[in-house]
């Protein structure tokens, strides 16, 4: 088994078929990479949403506590 092309330029050109071959491989690997990275993005988005909700509920509790304090002055 040996390298089929005499030079790197030859390898890129592939006797005029280079453009078809390289576009196919580029699009394929771009699509596969996007597919592989998507769950990580989804996880991060979920983390942000969860933190946001937790902040809201904390603030609500604070407001509640403050109202209680106003209603029943010590």
């Amino acid at each position, binding site marked *: 088994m040996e390298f*089929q092309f005499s030079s790197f330029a030859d390898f890129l050109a*592939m006797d005029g078929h280079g453009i078809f071959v390289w576009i196919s491989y580029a699009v394929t690997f771009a699509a596969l990479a996007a597919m592989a990275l998507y769950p990580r993005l989804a996880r991060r988005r*979920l983390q942000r949403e969860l933190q946001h909700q937790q902040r809201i509920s904390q603030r609500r509790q604070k407001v509640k506590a403050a109202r209680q304090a106003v209603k029943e002055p010590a």
Partner: protein
Amino acid sequence: MAWQWFHRLGSPRWFYQKTNVWLPWLALASVVLLSVGTVWGLGFAPEDAKQGNSYRIIFIHVPAAFLALAGYYIMAISGAIGLIWKMKLSFAVMRAAAPIGAVLTFISLFTGAVWGKPTWGTYWVWDARITSMLILLFLYIGVMALSQAVSREQVADKASALLALVGTVNIPIIYKSVDWWFTLHQPATIRLTESSSIDPSMFYPLLTMIIGFYCMYAWTLLTHTRALLLRREVRTQWAQQELAGGK
């Protein structure tokens, strides 16, 4: 007792923790196999006598098409399991399989079109194999859209599982399309029952890519399913603990 593992498999938490160990190995295997197969196919496999170098697209076209079809079985079967045993996990697998299948079908259609230009002189023909693959893409997109169109999750699960099952009719049509109709598409090069019409020097890199695509499929199916499960179980303690951790 014998059914215990089956029910445990249905538990999202158990699945999430169990698969954690497999992920790095599957990722490693897919990266190694796909890199080796790509270099082998692009640089070291001999030139095709009839098609010249454009045939090198086969090393991604065929594996992507294989997995686009196999992925449909996985989607339809997990939809069926979900319908029969009302298993949450199974529906999550079905939902995860839809976008992955769509990406793989897109890859096989796109590389096929680009391959068609130097080989047949055209990017697109409305022939049986190509049209049935396009229908497969629409089925995947349909399942994706339907699973998000209904806001009640259980209803959406059932509806998309039904659509996935009905769409299974298309699969044998795709397989047989090159034999049933006169077509530009070449018949299958790899056959299990008879000897393949492909030389070993081209077959081994192709096999490497096929196994690599299988590993990639397994890996992404797991990670997509896990992401869906986290979202569904976001109110439970284990999911919140998992999300609080880094990564």
